[in-house]
Each structure stands twice: as structure tokens, then as C-alpha cells.
């Protein structure tokens, strides 16, 4: 369903309608354990009628960052996340480089790019193969859709020559948690890729060698050759993963006609760009449009399959933080920090640079305020709409944006305007392979998941390019990785990056050499936001409302697998423990955690 198409809303659903069953999953995420999905399901029509996403945990980084030394920001904000903390460090460093007026040495940017590429490979692999695929494993499908599993047993896998598994059911068996071959191999791969990360950024997941001004990594040739040898170790795994993903996801479309509607919403995507091009990037706001477009993942806002902009200045000025259903007081009466950007453009009072966080704890009320997440929106000055952008779990928006913009052109990755071509070299067992990710027809659960594995290939191919660029500099004797600087009395900065699961921005205001205002906006506030002050639902809510139910179980033993697939496709950090509440007053005491498989209920 889309935000624009008409559909039943709260007003259309008669309260107490006996056909509707309330079902809730709370908490869903592991890292902060704070995402809840509350739904009303019509089991006769077999679809979700209403959905609210809620967060019950307040973090308060924007509150306690005030007054701190800005050089500490990267180390503190890293702790926002336990899996992609380095994305925060990197983004904070980008914002600080701008605020301090630093152009770091070129080699430092290649090293950060290499670290971030390893992070994407690691995190996407861990999430996809160890958490998402549990929902598509033999154990789960046997429990939720036995007829689909029967069909999978007799369906030949089209890419069997690449991954070596004869039927779709064989692939599903390899997804089985703790037992499946892919599940176990993915754990090994996530170890190797974390080692790659540590070579570049010192420590996972809170880097010890990434600072404003550069890095503390010693750029010895062996650092890069160690990285390269580990990268080549996982190359064949990536090729097999892509083939298995394509086979299973294509099978789901075929076996369950209409499955493209699960988790579907209008194409409203945001990507803030990743992998700086140090030959162009000088971290100055005045030139941000140019170096933003030179990034090796192109930033953009995409609506209905069309690019609205690839200009980071436009993207920055369009960000609005709305309230509406959040536990905060409005900051309309507070003084703004930044009235104009360095180019002289006016900065809105609802922009993160001007935000003041005023928490107001209160009882959860789905007719009023029900979440600690605010509602970030992107203001489209042409249409006057506040767009509820999602990130498609990160990879989907990154590939979509890069493909559509058609700017990226490297020896291993090329954007064509409608697709991204990724060349992977020969590995231990498999030959050289050229993969192509095409812009799909839908923004739905399956395409978000499919994009994730293709972005693993994208990051691996980019890492090859970065390691070659870095080695070229080291071979020429360039080992400078840090640029000294002074902290100014007053400055502003903004950093734009891609956390593994999507857009990431850090906005910084410095006064008297201290932080006066600091607002990180990671992907989950965009994806998991509640209804905003215009009543527009957040992306999770929007994608789940109207999702059809394909699960064969009835209300009594309902797993909510289609809803979970829709939510998890957005990569809401690491879903693990899920417990279920049935709204008729009966609490299901049995905790079921799909991570452990359907048989471990």
C-alpha cells in the first residue's frame, strides 16, 4: 500500500469490530530493545488493517552532548549503536571536519572507505544470513506455509551451478538457524570481515583510530595486503549468496502470487551517500554539492522512481523534524542556532541544526502520542509535501539512488541509469562474475532483502578499488594520514553518510569551543517514525498497513511471519527476541524467538 492510495484508516475501522484481531510484537529490536509493532488484523480479508510502530526507550544523545568537547563527539556518538557504531564515528568525523575546516590527507579517506566497506559486508551478511533468512528457512516455512515448502522440494534452483544446491528447499535448509550450512558459514564470514574492519579502523564496533583530521591507522603495506587477502577469502561466498538470494526470492513471487504486496509502499527513498572521493571532497559546505555527487554511493531523494535531487545542500536544507505523535514538547518558542547556512540559504526552525529536544514522558496512547521516536521528514519545496522517506533497509535506497543517478563509474562498479553492474574477480573456486542489480518494480519486503546481498557485492567490489587506490599512494611513499587543526570558537558542521541500514546525518553547532547543539539522525527514526503532525504514518506503519497475510496458520497459532518479513526487510537493527501479545486480553506466555527456529518455540 502507499501513503497516497486510499485504504482503511483508524476512522474507517469500527472500534470493537469482531473481525479484527489485535496483535502486537514488542520489542522487536535487539540493540535497544525498543521497537514495538501494534497491529489490527482482519483474518477474513487476510490483511493488516492498522499498524502503529512505537518506541519505549529514550536515548537523549542530543541532550547530554551539549557542553562537551566537540572532538569527543565521534567517540560518544559511536555508542548510539552496538552494530554500526563506526558509521556514527565516521559521520561525526565528517561533520567535525567541516566545522574545523579540515581537509584530511587523501590516504585517510581511503582508509575510512575501506573500513566502512568492510562494515557493510559484515553487517549485511550477519543480518541477512543469520537473522532475515530465519524467516525464509525450512524450519520457519514448514511451520507457517507447509504447502510452499512442499512446492520448494520439487522446484529446481535455477542457479544451482553457482551455489551447488539442487532445489529451493535445499537452499531453505541451508538457512536453518544453527544447523544450516549458509547460517554457519555466514558466521565465519562475519568474523573475517570484522577483522578487515579492525585493520582499518582499529576496533569493531567503536573505532579507536578514526578522528577528525584523519586516522591513526599505520598505513604499512601489510595492512592493505592483509585486508585484500581477507576480502578475497569471502569473494566466492558473496557470489554464492547472490545466487541463493535470487533463487529464493524469485521462488516466493512464483509460489505465492501477490507476495509483492507484502511490505509494499510507495517508492519514497532517501540516501545520504557513502564512500567519499578524496580527490574531490574538501569537506567545505560551500562545495558540498560537488563532493556529494562525487561520492561512490550517490546521495539522493527518490519519489515514485524519479530523482528529486542529488545535491547534498538541497538534501540538508529539506530535513524537517516533526513531532505529532512523539513524547516531546515543541521547540517553536526556543531561539534558533543557525538561521542561514554558509551559502546564505535560510535554515528552517524544524531543521536539526535548530532543534531543541524537550522530552515529556507520558503514557502511551495510540490516539495521541505513542513513541519516543520523532518524525523526520524531507520537505519537497516543489510539491510542498513533507515526505516520509524510508531507506529500504539501507541497501535498497543506496543501489536505487546510485543506479538512477548513473554517476558512479569505477573499474569494478558502474551505474547505468537503470541498474548497477558489479564485477567480482575470480575467487578460490568460482570464476570472475559480473552481477547486475536492476531497479525493481516495487519497494517491498523481498526487494529490500534482495538489494541487501547485492550491496554486499557492491561494497566488496568497491573495497577492491579503494585498496588499489590506497596501495598506489603507499607505493609512492605517501604515508600521511592525519592533518592537525584547531577547534574554532564558533562553527557549524554537518556530516552525511550511510549507516548500514540507511541514511545518517550528524548536525553540529559549536560555541565557545564546546558543543552547543548536536543532533544525530540515524535511519531508524526515519523508518520507524510514528504518525507526524500532518497525520502521515511512518514507513513501517505505512508498509505494514494493507500487507496481505499469506501465512496458513489461523489466529490461534499465528506467527505473523508476513508482518515480520515486512518489518525485518527494513533492517530495524537486529531483531531477535520477539514476544507476542493477543489483544483480547490473553497474553501468549510462550516466548518465541524466530532466531532459534520455529521448532524452538
Amino acid at each position, binding site marked *: 500500500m502507499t501513503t497516497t492510495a486510499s485504504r482503511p484508516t483508524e476512522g474507517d475501522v469500527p472500534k470493537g469490530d469482531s473481525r479484527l484481531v489485535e496483535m502486537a510484537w514488542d520489542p522487536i529490536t535487539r540493540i535497544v530493545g525498543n521497537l514495538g509493532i501494534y497491529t489490527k488484523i482482519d483474518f477474513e480479508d487476510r490483511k493488516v488493517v492498522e499498524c502503529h510502530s512505537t518506541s519505549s526507550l529514550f536515548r537523549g544523545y542530543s541532550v547530554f552532548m551539549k557542553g562537551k*568537547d566537540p*572532538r569527543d563527539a565521534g567517540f560518544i556518538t559511536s555508542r548510539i549503536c552496538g552494530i554500526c557504531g563506526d558509521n556514527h564515528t565516521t559521520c561525526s568525523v565528517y561533520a567535525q571536519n567541516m566545522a574545523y575546516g579540515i581537509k584530511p590527507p587523501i590516504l585517510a579517506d581511503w582508509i575510512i572507505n575501506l573500513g566502512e566497506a568492510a562494515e557493510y559486508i559484515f553487517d549485511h551478511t550477519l543480518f541477512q544470513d543469520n537473522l532475515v533468512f530465519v524467516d525464509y528457512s525450512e524450519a520457519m516455512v514448514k511451520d507457517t506455509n507447509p504447502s510452499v515448502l512442499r512446492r520448494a522440494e520439487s522446484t529446481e534452483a535455477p542457479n544451482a551451478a553457482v551455489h551447488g544446491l539442487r532445489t529451493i528447499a535445499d537452499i531453505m535448509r541451508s538457512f536453518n538457524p544453527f544447523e544450516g550450512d549458509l547460517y554457519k558459514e555466514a558466521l565465519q564470514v562475519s568474523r573475517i570481515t570484522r577483522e578487515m574492519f579492525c585493520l582499518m579502523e582499529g576496533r569493531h564496533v567503536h573505532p579507536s583510530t578514526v578522528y577528525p583530521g584523519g586516522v591513526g591507522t599505520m598505513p604499512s603495506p601489510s595492512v592493505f595486503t592483509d585486508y585484500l587477502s581477507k576480502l578475497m577469502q569471502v569473494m566466492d561466498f558473496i557470489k554464492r549468496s547472490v545466487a541463493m538470494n535470487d533463487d529464493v526470492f524469485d521462488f516466493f513471487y512464483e509460489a505465492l502470487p501477490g507476495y509483492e504486496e507484502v511490505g509494499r509502499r510507495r517508492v519514497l527513498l532517501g540516501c545520504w551517500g557513502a564512500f567519499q572521493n578524496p580527490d574531490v571532497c574538501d569537506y567545505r559546505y560551500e562545495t558540498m554539492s560537488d563532493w556529494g555527487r562525487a561520492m561512490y554511493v550517490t546521495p539522493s531523494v527518490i519519489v515514485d522512481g524519479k530523482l528529486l535531487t542529488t545535491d547534498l545542500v538541497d538534501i540538508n536544507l529539506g530535513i524537517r523534524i516533526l513531532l505529532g505523535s512523539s513524547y516531546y514538547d515543541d521547540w517553536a518558542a526556543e531561539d534558533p542556532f543557525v538561521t542561514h547556512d554558509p551559502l546564505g540559504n535560510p535554515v528552517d526552525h524544524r531543521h536539526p541544526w535548530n532543534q531543541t529536544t524537550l522530552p515529556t514522558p507520558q503514557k502511551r496512547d495510540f490516539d495521541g502520542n505513542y513513541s519516543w521516536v520523532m518524525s523526520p521528514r524531507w520537505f519537497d519545496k516543489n510539491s510542498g509535501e513533507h515526505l516520509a522517506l524510508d531507506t529500504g533497509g539501507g541497501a535498497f535506497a543506496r543501489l536505487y539512488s546510485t543506479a538512477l543517478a548513473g554517476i558512479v563509474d569505477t573499474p569494478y562498479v558502474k551505474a547505468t541509469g537503470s541498474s548497477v553492474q558489479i564485477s567480482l574477480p575470480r575467487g578460490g573456486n568460482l570464476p570472475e562474475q559480473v552481477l547486475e542489480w536492476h531497479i525493481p518494480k516495487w519497494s517491498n519486503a523481498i526487494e529490500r532483502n534482495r538489494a541487501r546481498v547485492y550491496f554486499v557485492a557492491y561494497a566488496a567490489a568497491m573495497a577492491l578499488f579503494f585498496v588499489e587506490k590506497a596501495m598506489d599512494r603507499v607505493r609512492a*611513499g605517501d*604515508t600521511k594520514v*592525519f592533518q*592537525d587543526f*584547531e577547534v574554532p570558537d564558533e562553527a557549524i558542521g554537518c556530516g552525511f553518510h550511510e549507516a548500514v541500514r540507511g541514511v545518517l546525518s550528524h548536525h553540529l553547532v559549536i560555541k565557545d569551543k564546546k558543543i552547543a547543539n548536536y543532533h544525530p539522525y540515524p535511519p531508524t527514526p526515519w523508518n520507524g517514525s510514528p504518525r507526524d503532525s500532518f497525520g502521515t504514518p511512518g514507513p513501517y506503519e505505512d508498509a505494514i498497513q494493507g500487507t496481505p497475510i499469506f501465512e496458513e496458520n489461523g489466529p490461534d497459532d499465528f506467527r505473523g511471519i508476513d508482518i515480520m518479513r515486512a518489518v525485518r526487510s527494513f533492517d530495524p537493527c537486529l531483531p531477535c527476541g520477539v514476544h507476542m501479545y493477543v489483544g483480547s486480553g490473553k497474553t501468549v506466555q510462550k516466548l518465541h524467538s524466530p532466531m532459534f527456529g520455529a521448532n524452538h518455540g
Partner: protein
Amino acid sequence: MAEIKVGKPDVAPDTTAHTKGVPQGNRKNAYERMIGHHRDGTADARRSTGISPKEHDAILPTMPNVPPA
């Protein structure tokens, strides 16, 4: 741990970073003062070791001087 005689520290080891008197790695001209680092971004073996550093430098002037570790 070997008993190595060291001088009295100027500040307590747990003094927070950015305390007045503690040298800051990012301070202006810090790069030029660091031994073994050259202004043009290259380095020599003194960056990595003080023990016979010249033996670890490149053996020919046309070769890049990559510090040992």
C-alpha cells in the same frame, strides 16, 4: 612486568584528555614536530623506530620509503 625506572608523571595517568598542559595530538604544527614525518606527506624509518633507523630506510633513493611498522 619488568621494573623500568620512569620519571614522575607531570599529570595523573587518569587525567582526562584536553586538560590544560596535556599535549593535544591535533594541535597546530604537531605534524611537523613529529620525528620521521616529512612535510610532503612522506616518512622515514624514524617514524617507527629509534633503533638503527637508517638500516630500515629504503635502500635506493628511487624507492618509496615505507616505515617498517
